[in-house]
């Protein structure tokens, strides 16, 4: 069925919405997992993303791909979650569980977990930019839509994110 018709039907019909979930669950879950690296949390945030999508489905006007609209909701859900954690002071506890030995060589350290740890020190928007561009393989324009910025603002945010990430990596391994 045509995606637009399916979305229209999903407003009232649970089966149609389940079809949408089947189509996009994996991609949304993977994105959230790359941002959090915690399975249970990713499961909960993915559920929250789809329930929020169901709630705001009438506001989707079809101006972008539906997956981008879902990724935008997912980004907001993740950011809301981390902001809540920051407010409740539980953020550092959850992000400092796994860490690498500072004596390791740079080659050993550059894996996703290490990058994720460094990214966790960046702003939520910078984290989203790097995840979307490098791990979700979105271009600047699409990432700009997902984050809710203009392409130019997105470019600035992207370079600032790279510079900040480089600083964080340098802090963790001096040879970089």
């Amino acid at each position: 069925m045509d995606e637009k018709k399916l979305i229209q039907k999903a407003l009232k019909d649970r089966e149609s919405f389940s079809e949408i979930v089947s189509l996009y669950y994996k991609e949304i879950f993977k994105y959230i997992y790359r941002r959090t690296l915690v399975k249970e949390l990713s499961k909960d945030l993915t559920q929250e993303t789809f329930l929020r999508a169901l709630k705001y489905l009438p506001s989707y006007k079809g101006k972008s791909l539906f997956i981008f609209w879902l990724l935008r909701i997912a980004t907001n859900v993740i950011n809301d979650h981390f902001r809540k954690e920051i407010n409740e002071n539980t953020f550092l506890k959850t992000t400092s569980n796994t860490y690498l030995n500072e004596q390791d060589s740079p080659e050993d350290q550059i894996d996703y977990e290490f990058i994720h740890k460094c990214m966790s020190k960046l702003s939520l928007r910078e984290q989203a930019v790097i995840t979307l561009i490098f791990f979700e393989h979105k271009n600047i324009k699409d990432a700009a839509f997902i984050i809710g910025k203009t392409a130019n603002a997105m470019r600035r945010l992207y370079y600032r994110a790279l510079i900040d990430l480089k600083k964080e990596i340098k802090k963790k391994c001096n040879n970089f």
Partner: protein
Amino acid sequence: MKRKNKEDTEKIENMLRSVKPSELADEEIESYKEDFNRVLQEEFSKVTVQRDRRRVLRVKLAYGLAIFALVLTLFSFMYVKPYLIRVATARIINEQLRVNIALKDVIVKDGVGIVIYNYQEVVVNVSSEKVEVSQPIEYEPSDKEREQAIEIVRSSKEAKYFVAKEGEAPQDISKNDVVSIEGLMFPNSGKKLVEVSLAYTPTSYHLGSRLPPSIPGSQPPLMTAKFTVDIEKGEIQP
């Protein structure tokens, strides 16, 4: 410096491209999806009912706001327009007649500003900036107007502390006889003023200094004090 930054950026971009993100097995994700579908069976109707209720509320709110905005516009038109006419009238009179007018003295009627100044009626058409000056018409006040005017004069401090000439001591003429009552009506504003004249004797009058004491039946001179009363405002015009 720029080149160094570019190189650094490229270096970190290449590094990020080479990093393989952590992945989970598809089966595991599928099992999560099945869990969510079970949740969805319960949540779907709840969310859709909530969404529809919110939409109805939003429509009601929008109507409410529209009505409120309409009422607000009407009210502002009722109160703001006369205020603007007052301001414009005062400005035009100041420019053309070189007279300063207080906004509270401007009467707004049928979209024009009217000012009663120096027993003249000044009508200002604010859109064409045209000023017309007209004289009041004499009229015979009704019995009620007469009574009201006399009452206002008798209870006024102007009559109780009346000073005929500068330097004289004030005297109370509020209970004195009424000599005449005349009405003035301004044709454009329909505003009425009533002139009440009271009799009084100057305090500086000394019988001995003016008339020979031997003249029998000699009377002190009778003077009249004229008070212009604005019945609507219940006060004496300065």
